[in-house]
């Protein structure tokens, strides 16, 4: 630690704010600068989000009305047509030719999930905002292990490339790609007959690499936060965003190895004749689900916790008021993280696990509503008595609070195993987790993006375009996902490429919602174009440190915008008032 800072100090002595040209590829390829790496993470997340968003567009296009719209003819052309009886086809085994490919639809669903989780939300929140603002907020010159930070990032494009290639190579008898859902359940994922091709192996390797990237990043954040806080920046004075990242990276560190183990067993089951999950060989497919969800449930908190932190910063800033109940907020996140490890089997209520186990998981799951409620009410209490400025980031943050609440309460419904026998694996679940992720996590990402974009770039964006983006998104995503509650209550299963007429109406509404949301995304990209290319308005000198006024009290707002290439050559000293 001491040597680390000394090394930096030497470097800066003769090289104050030496910022290499952005056109020099070495600046990015060899970067050890947390802000450059953070920027790369954010750009990567935007690209992955675009890919994942296009996949979801294909999903909604397919589901716009009953009947197969687009997912045939992607393979085995020439044998299509509903007049071919599929009863006969299935009986004689020639089904794959008949069906063009509903499998391709499943591939889209699978990859939409994986890309949005591993290559959009996580890189944006942890890699992007975490890298950028954890060191700034704790008064550190950089991350603890800058070179490790570099490889954390650069593993991701290769992981993403493997995932993308997996969509194109043979998946097995059903066609290209892996179509077993993001959960990769065995034995569908280990079946030689259905997924015998290299696609699933590529996906396993992709997740291994993404996992290594995340674990390295997690170690980096833990060491940074524990060791590199500025004098006076005690743990209980850290901004809540730093707390949220600290809890998140602990979850990553403890849960990802379990995923790595599980998918390694998939790999050996597929290729080396083991039978971990093969019932015929003495294995147990349900064990895979336990392993997966032991990772998977903390993973969903990994996706949302940094959002909690971002929203806390924004709500405080734009209410011009310190966070209400700071310690309660911090330890609510810690307890959500801890409880998140003991509720995993609520994803598996229908596997036949037995009454006592189900009853336990019902009780444990419902407990999570308590710290979550504390967070919601504390945000509102932070605004209470404040002087609220409804600027663009605050719009997204308030949108987050409301939509996350809506998604949270349906989680309480689903927590009850008794009701889950009807709702499990229906669109009710899809609506639930998109309310907490697509509207929770993504709204938090946009909130953070609009909050910190002037800081990261030194430029102003159009508040009008940002607000327009918010309102179109808010309307659009609600039209997509609210009707999916109705579909789920009526029993519509997830991951159906086609559905009976009885589900037609709300599916159509949902697809219209996607079109609206897509317009919102276009506004977002135009906002970026307007900001960085067309107008390029610099922050005025008065606003240069902070465009958000007195409410923005964390350390990043004491620096220039964009911050110097290397900041805090002299460590800031944090005094009592500074914390919140």
């Amino acid at each position, binding site marked *: 630690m001491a040597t680390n800072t000394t090394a930096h100090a030497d470097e800066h002595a003769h090289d104050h704010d030496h910022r290499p040209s952005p056109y020099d590829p070495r600046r990015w390829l060899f970067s050890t600068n947390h802000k450059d790496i953070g920027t790369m993470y954010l750009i990567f997340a935007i690209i992955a989000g675009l890919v994942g968003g296009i996949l979801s567009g294909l999903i909604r296009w397919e589901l716009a009305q009953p009947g197969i719209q687009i997912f045939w003819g992607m393979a085995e052309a020439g044998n299509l047509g*509903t*007049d071919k*009886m*599929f*009863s006969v086809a299935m009986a004689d085994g020639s*089904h794959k030719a008949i069906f063009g490919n*509903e499998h391709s639809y*499943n591939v889209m669903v699978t990859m939409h999930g994986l890309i949005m989780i591993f290559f959009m939300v996580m890189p944006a929140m942890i890699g992007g905002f975490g890298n950028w603002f954890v060191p700034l907020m704790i008064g550190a010159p950089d991350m603890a292990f800058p070179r490790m930070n570099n490889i954390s990032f650069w593993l991701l494009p290769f992981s993403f490339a493997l995932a993308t290639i997996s969509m194109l190579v043979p998946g097995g008898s059903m*066609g290209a790609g892996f179509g*077993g*859902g993001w959960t990769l*359940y065995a*034995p569908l994922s280990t079946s030689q007959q*259905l997924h015998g091709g290299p696609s699933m192996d590529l996906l396993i390797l992709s997740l291994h690499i993404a996992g290594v990237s995340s674990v390295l990043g997690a170690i980096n954040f833990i060491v940074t936060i524990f060791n590199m806080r500025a004098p006076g920046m005690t743990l209980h004075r850290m901004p809540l965003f730093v707390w949220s990242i600290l809890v998140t990276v602990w979850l990553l560190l403890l849960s990802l190895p379990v995923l790595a183990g599980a998918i390694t067993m998939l790999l050996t089951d597929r290729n080396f004749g083991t039978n971990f999950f093969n*019932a015929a060989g003495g294995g147990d497919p349900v064990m895979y689900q336990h392993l997966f969800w032991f990772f998977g449930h903390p993973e969903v908190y990994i996706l949302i916790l940094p959002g909690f932190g971002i929203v806390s910063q924004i709500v405080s800033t734009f209410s011009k*008021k*310190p966070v209400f109940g700071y310690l309660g907020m911090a330890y609510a996140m810690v307890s959500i993280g801890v409880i998140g490890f003991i509720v995993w089997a609520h994803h598996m209520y*229908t596997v*036949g696990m037995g*009454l006592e186990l189900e009853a336990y998981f019902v*009780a444990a799951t419902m407990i999570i*509503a*308590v710290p979550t*409620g*504390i967070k919601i*009410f504390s945000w*509102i*209490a932070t*605004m209470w*008595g*404040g*002087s*609220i400025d*409804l600027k663009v980031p605050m719009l997204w943050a308030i949108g987050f609070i*409301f939509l996350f*609440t809506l998604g949270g*309460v349906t989680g*309480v*419904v689903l927590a*009850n*195993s*008794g*009701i889950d*026998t009807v709702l*499990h694996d229906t669109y009710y679940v899809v609506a639930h987790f998109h309310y907490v992720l697509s509207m929770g996590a993504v709204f938090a990402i946009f909130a953070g993006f609009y909050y910190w974009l002037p800081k990261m770039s030194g430029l102003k964006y159009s508040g009008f375009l940002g607000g327009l983006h918010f309102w179109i998104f808010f309307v659009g995503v609600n039209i997509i996902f609210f009707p999916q*509650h*109705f579909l789920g*209550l*009526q*029993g519509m*299963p997830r991951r*159906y*490429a*086609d559905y*009976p*007429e*009885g589900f*037609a*109406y709300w599916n159509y509404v949902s697809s219209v919602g996607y079109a609206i949301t897509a317009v919102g995304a276009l506004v977002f990209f135009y906002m970026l174009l307007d900001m960085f290319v067309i107008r390029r308005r610099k922050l005025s000198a008065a606003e240069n440190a902070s465009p958000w006024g007195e409410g923005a009290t964390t350390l990043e707002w004491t620096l220039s915008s964009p911050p110097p290439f290397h900041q805090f050559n002299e460590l800031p000293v944090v005094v009592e008032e500074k914390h*919140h």
Partner: protein
Amino acid sequence: MKRGWIGSALAQALVYTFVAGGIAAAQTVTGPVDGAIGLQPAATEIAQDIANFHTLLLWIITAVTLFVLALLIYVMVRFNKSANPTPKKFTHNLTVEVVWTVVPVLILVGISLFSFPLLFKQEQIPEAGLTIKATGNAWRWDYSYPDQGVDITSLPLNEADAKAQNRPFRMAVDEPMYVPAGVNVRMLVTSNDVIHAFSVPSFGIKEDAVPGRINETWFNVPKEGIYYGFCQELCGMLHGFMPIEVRVVSPAEFDRWIQSKGGQLASAATVIEAPTTPAAAPPAEPAAAPAPTAPATPG
């Protein structure tokens, strides 16, 4: 727009009927209704319990959501910078912090008072009058009646046949699963290949079909009719094309069906003669016009 959602909600409350093509009798049919916004009509006591519990939860979560929304709107208006230019600086209030911790706990305890009895009721399988084993395959359901010695394979109708018979495409099958009304049916669910899930929403059941395991669930449908369900666990390409059609018929007709499938009636009759009375089941009406139908025989 011909399908207003309120109208649909009302329509959904009624079990709709239509005349099955080629079969000269009205059948009550329970499946998804276009535009509906709630649960499918409950066909079993368990499903009715689930529906009641869901209604309770819906009131609670709606109230919570509207409360949060109301608070958000209030603070946005009352503490807007134009209405309140000088922010206060308080950061603690022990009373409200205790309240918003304790009140949710009480609500959750209240929910669990209803949740656990429902769960226990679902999981405790009563003495069964009939046992059926459903086996998932990629991509079809096989049903066997071990005590009757009947094994059938159930395949979805193709679009032309479904149209010709005026039955719902993607839900109707060539060989439905027959069960007698008012009998406790024990479902054994397993799989031959990948994981599937056997579910009939209006029965309130869903059980994963896991290779190497036999899962168990049960239902008792007092009212005759056709009930549709789905495979509810992603099982590959044709996951969406292995529907479940359950025909609940009178015990006499069930016997005829067993015989038509070459089953052993004797064993069936002995079990079915002592059906547990359908305990005050929700849509308890006298069995609707028992239609002496031949099992549908599509091509």
